[in-house]
């Protein structure tokens, strides 16, 4: 199972676009990529979930871990997500209140 992980720089933000299914088998790759980005100096990370087909609690955990790491480095991690089935997972777990979730990469990288 492939997990697509593409990075672009936009407007001072590092945008990580995730493609495919994020579950217990693939989530470690997402975690590694986030850790790498932070260690390379990224502080404002946007994780674009628009092409994610499936996301489970392991995926949520990785995102929470990333947010924690960035906040403790004076950075932030926000999300792009409009898919109802993915948003639902954040809603049920209350994580919509923890993450800033945007409708588009443009919105997420517009600064405030």
């Amino acid at each position, binding site marked *: 199972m492939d997990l697509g992980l593409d990075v672009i720089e936009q407007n001072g933000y590092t945008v990580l676009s995730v493609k495919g299914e994020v579950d217990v088998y693939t989530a470690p790759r997402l975690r590694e990529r986030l850790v790498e980005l932070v260690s390379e100096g990224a502080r404002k990370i946007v994780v674009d979930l628009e092409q994610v087909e499936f996301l*489970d609690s392991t995926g949520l*955990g990785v995102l929470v871990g990333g947010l924690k790491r960035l906040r403790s480095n004076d950075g932030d991690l926000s999300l792009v997500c409009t898919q109802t089935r993915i948003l639902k997972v954040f809603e049920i777990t209350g994580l919509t209140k923890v993450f800033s979730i945007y409708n588009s990469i443009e919105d997420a990288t517009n600064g405030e």
Partner: protein
Amino acid sequence: MLGNTNVQLDIPIQMEYVSLVRILISDLAQSRREIDPQKVNDLKLAISEACTNAIEAHKAIHSDQKIKIAWSEQPDHFEVSIRDFGKGFDIEALPKHPPVTDPERLNFERGLGIPLIKALMDEVSFNSSSEGTFVKMIVFCQPLEKKLDFDSEL
């Protein structure tokens, strides 16, 4: 107990098989009855969480026994069960997460699986002992409206 098990799948103790279970269960749910596509997504997520836990439970005791997923159809619902032979757990004793507004919340990267299963399934039961765990999940085929306000439960 399970009424009438229609399909049974045994998978090895490797995380890469969880996606196979999702494919199987979502194909069954979609092909067997008229069902709300969102319910199929819910089932895929719940079964993933339960299989992940079952595989972890076997890994924890270095068991290479397969876990068993069973699918059965009842007049108004589907029943999906996951059986493992790990050392079990006490569902009542699981730690509660701090409220989402608490900064401490960020220290909890795990423990979201069972709350998700409970929120997504129409009915769920956990039977766990030192012999292993049996999770039974029920999804009604006629879509039911379900409120998604489970913050307090997490």
